[in-house]
């Protein structure tokens, strides 16, 4: 019995969400009186022994060039070999873009029950029950897994990383590596911005901002705080902002520590993508805007008057001239 944590990497660097998965996996191992092993596929430049700080005992590496690029089918095959070799009973990974392709494949291959988007540690007092969000964040379901091997994909920002002293042993894992069947022909990353799905802070604008020329205040606040920018669907539909920024039922879902909404009414379809945020701030000139009901903090006021003052106050706080 052991816990296997799948570490996700991009261009040789461990993704932030994997540190959350490592912390979570180590805590599950503690619950089950066992240890947590991590596995990393592809060539990675980061210090893997440092995963010990998150509670990982051992790191298995499959440093093969064919695995540098994520391929769900090849990854599933290699990880299934590692699950067998380590007698893993719980597999933990991130519910991010790669995890959403990998976890279900692995589940079907191993006939292992999976939780997609866990938000808490398993309850092992009576079986094995894990909580996840359902109805687009409006409720939770506690799901019971009945199979010997269990797969948990962990929601972004759902589990705080913890570090202590510690160093993991790193060893190569010899695996059969199938040839990837998907050929990647181009990668188009929007550089210099925080990816929305991983962001801890999100500044978002709605139609209340009147036009794309007024997005400076959203971008200024975001860059001061190291936040990602987002928008409502109405804004993306009007082509004021690119579609990948649109959040809500039909756009992306985010769960940051702070969702700061400016000039967004808070329609239920918008809330569906943001209501898992820890703290919601709403700036809207209409005191009746539905968003205030879902907010933790708010200002009833004109964004064009309020935002410059907020930016000034944040500059002061950050010591920026």
């Amino acid at each position, binding site marked *: 019995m052991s816990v296997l944590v799948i570490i996700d990497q991009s261009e040789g660097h461990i993704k932030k969400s994997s540190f959350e998965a490592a912390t979570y996996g180590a805590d599950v191992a503690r619950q089950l009186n066992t240890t947590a092993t991590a596995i990393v596929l592809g060539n990675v430049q980061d210090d893997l022994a440092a995963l010990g700080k998150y509670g990982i005992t051992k790191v298995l590496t499959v440093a093969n060039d064919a695995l540098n690029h994520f391929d769900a089918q090849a990854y599933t095959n290699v990880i299934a070999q590692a699950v067998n070799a380590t007698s893993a009973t719980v597999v933990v990974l991130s519910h991010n*873009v790669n995890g959403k392709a*990998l976890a279900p494949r692995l589940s079907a291959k191993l006939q292992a029950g999976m939780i997609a*988007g866990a938000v808490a540690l398993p309850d092992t007092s009576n079986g094995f029950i894990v909580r996840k969000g359902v109805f687009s964040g409006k409720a939770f379901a506690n799901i019971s897994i009945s199979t010997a091997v269990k797969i948990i994909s962990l929601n972004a920002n759902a589990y705080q990383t913890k570090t202590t002293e510690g160093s993991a042993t790193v060893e190569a894992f010899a695996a059969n590596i199938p040839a990837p069947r998907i050929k990647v022909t181009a*990668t188009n990353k929007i550089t210099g911005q925080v990816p929305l799905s991983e962001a801890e*802070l999100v500044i978002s604008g709605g139609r209340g901002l009147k036009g794309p020329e007024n997005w400076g205040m959203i971008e200024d606040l975001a860059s001061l705080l190291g936040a990602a920018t987002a928008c409502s669907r109405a804004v993306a539909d009007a082509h004021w902002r690119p579609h*990948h920024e649109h959040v809500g039922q039909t756009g992306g879902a985010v769960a940051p520590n702070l969702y700061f909404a400016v000039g967004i009414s808070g329609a239920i379809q918008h809330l569906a993508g943001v209501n898992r945020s820890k703290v919601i701030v709403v700036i809207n000139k209409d005191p009746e805007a539905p968003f205030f009901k879902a907010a933790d903090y708010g200002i009833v006021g004109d964004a064009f008057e309020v935002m410059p003052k907020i930016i000034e106050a944040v500059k002061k706080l950050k010591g920026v001239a």
Partner: protein
Amino acid sequence: MKILVCVSKTPDTTAKIAFTDNNTKFVQDGVQWIINPYDEWYALVRAIELKEKDAATTIHLITVGAADCEPIIRKALALGGDEAIRVNADSHDSFYIASQIAAIAKEGGYDLVFTGKETIDYNGSSIGGMVAELLDMPYVSLATKFDLNGTTATINREIEGGEESCEVSLPVVLSAQKGMAEQRIPNMKGIMGARTKPLKVVEPIAVTPLTSIASFEMPPAKAGVKLVAADTPEELVRLLHEEAKVF
């Protein structure tokens, strides 16, 4: 070229969410059911566009669900598609549902199996990947663009902070999201035609579910919004820094 589009029924986003029977059952009274938006707007519409361009010869729809799914299937058929298959089973276990879809897909010899990015009620994002594994096919998830060049598909998919383009030989399983197509409204001809399109009901194959829902829970109620006066926005910054500690 044969396409199988997986469609599921979900409560409308504006539906009131409540539970009964000791929080084990979703209250369905007064709930308006819709086609899961990702299945309808993106997977189905893209399949229809491919057929309009003659790249697809046949579009079949599949849903795993009880008889109460039929209005949803008819609505999907009104948008397009040649016939529908309903696997007569009611389950929330993704592996159970995926196994039913895989069995039909195998038998039908489809070149392309289209799913939505996720269901908006169970938010699993799982069925497509499971179907692909069960069929030993490549799976391109969170796809925003799909084109065909002979038997090679060129697909764009979401990655963290951007997109990547890839090529894959058919057959392939795909999960579709925004970008893939534009929402359509069924026209009168489509609605009339849908009434006579074949809707086959088949019994499920035997599969043991891997998970079950133990209970539901509502999130703790928000304490209510703390309002800051519009003329002192710096107070909001102070609260976020010192009280909420978000930056």
